[in-house]
């Protein structure tokens, strides 16, 4: 599997990263190398092995439906770069 610069641009846009042209080239090469390395997994025979979603052999970790105390808006907003009353404030979003 190979990756081209167009895909790097798409992924960068999804991640809200702006890359210079030389960075795009650099990352295209690096990503290609990473994907090629991961590709070696395909050499294994995985017939009859169900897909693994988690590495930890555990299931059904639940909590009961009980309300526990929240931390309150003062602490919730303590690290907010900007706020208005008890809202976090962000640049205007147009729907």
């Amino acid at each position, binding site marked *: 599997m190979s990756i081209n610069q167009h895909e790097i641009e798409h992924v960068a846009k999804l991640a809200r990263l702006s890359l210079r042209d030389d960075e795009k080239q650099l990352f295209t090469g690096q990503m290609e190398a990473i994907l090629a390395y991961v590709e070696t997994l395909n050499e294994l025979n995985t017939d009859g092995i169900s897909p693994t979603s988690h590495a930890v052999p555990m*299931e059904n970790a639940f909590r009961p439906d*009980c309300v*526990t105390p929240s931390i309150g*808006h003062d602490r919730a907003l303590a690290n907010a770069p*900007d706020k208005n009353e008890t*809202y*976090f404030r*962000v640049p*205007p979003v147009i729907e």
Partner: protein
Amino acid sequence: MKFQPVIGLEVHVQLKTDSKIFCGCSTRFGAEPNLNTCPVCLALPGALPVLNQKVVEFAIMAGLATNCSITPTNIFARKNYFYPDLPKGYQISQFDLPICLAGHLDIAVGDQTKRIGITRIHMEEDAGKLVHGQGGGSGVDLNRAGTPLLEVVSEPDMRTADEAVAYLKKLYQIVTYLGICDGNMEEGSFRCDANISVMPVGSDTFGTRAEIKNVNSFKFVKAAIEYEISRQCELIEDGGKVVQETRLFDPNKGVTRSMRGKEEAHDYRYFPDPDLVPVVISNDWIKRVKGDLPELPETKFNRFLTDYSLPEYDADVLTSSRPLADYFEQCAQSCNNAKSAANWIMGELTRSLNDNGIAVEKSPVSPVQLADLIKLIDGGTISGTIAKKVFEELWKNGGEAAAIVEQQGLAQVSDTGAIETAIDQIMAANMGQVEEYRGGKDKVFGFFVGQVMKAMKGKANPAVVNDLLKQKLAG
């Protein structure tokens, strides 16, 4: 050209749990902004989600009630996108292994039944809420972030706005019957996205679809779908092309409008969430949930037909919601006259509830109070007309029907002597009409009944009045 619309719906059902899906914060609506938050739903670094077991149980209930199969091994996935109401930068949802698959609901279309496929139901968390016009910015309230949702995705099986509304109402009825959703549409507990396309009649290739986001009333769903169908038909007839896009319905203008700019974000890069271990649902668990399912609307409807010998119309109206059905059953069992209970509930009670905007479970007249009133009619103590007055009194001031009848002297007069006296006086005062009647003008009979009832202040037993009048008028 004639067009065939094709409609599929995605419904977000907010689950009625006390706490959020992955943390213990309250799901209560209307709290002060950001009050119900903690490191998990604020997405503070290092915080880890733990699944609320009730969400899984509610999802199994929804699946069983909509004829789905339940997926034995469930995993949660991250749906990645950036939006200010989504603090983690991803929504925890389900992707390739949703908890419920391949179900259906049957809806009534005219006098036919139509089966609408349900592709899948999955569990996910809600995002926060954005408030606009916050001093040059937008405000973010994360109280709703992490509220548990079920997303119910239908097959594109609907062909008209009415079918879509019928399907939605059916689904709404089921989730509120199950008690897994409070059904409060104004607060967004049940909201709908509609996928709509049109194709030439006779074609079997669907047209390009537009998605209308977040419509939260049955009326708006109908209006939005109808508008969108006509917009697409006109566009194609004018030589244009429908583009795949997300649109918003404006209820004030009754139109849908394009929401530009969110298109590239449709690449969500789902992957399994490593913070949440798989959920394995055993057959025993499913059996247990099945055993605890409340009676569903269709079963109740059929039971009302057989147990109470109600007409289909009555059974349909009375099973439209669980509280209404419960009210009816308590009343019918207490007065032993199901048809009369049905009539009173569908008539006087519903009218009074609607006029005052009161839900049936908060009715000032209880099922037993209404049953006592019906018993007084059935026992011949009061007439139907007087009963309406007693009902008004019960509605306004409470109390017991029998006591009201006694205090206000409303008991029906069946005593023939008193009624005969009244009839004699009225006949004497209206000889002209008596002659008319005797001359064959049967319609005048109603006039006499009215006069007698008026003279008796509505308290005369109508059957006795009829009998006596007939005798006397015959001369």
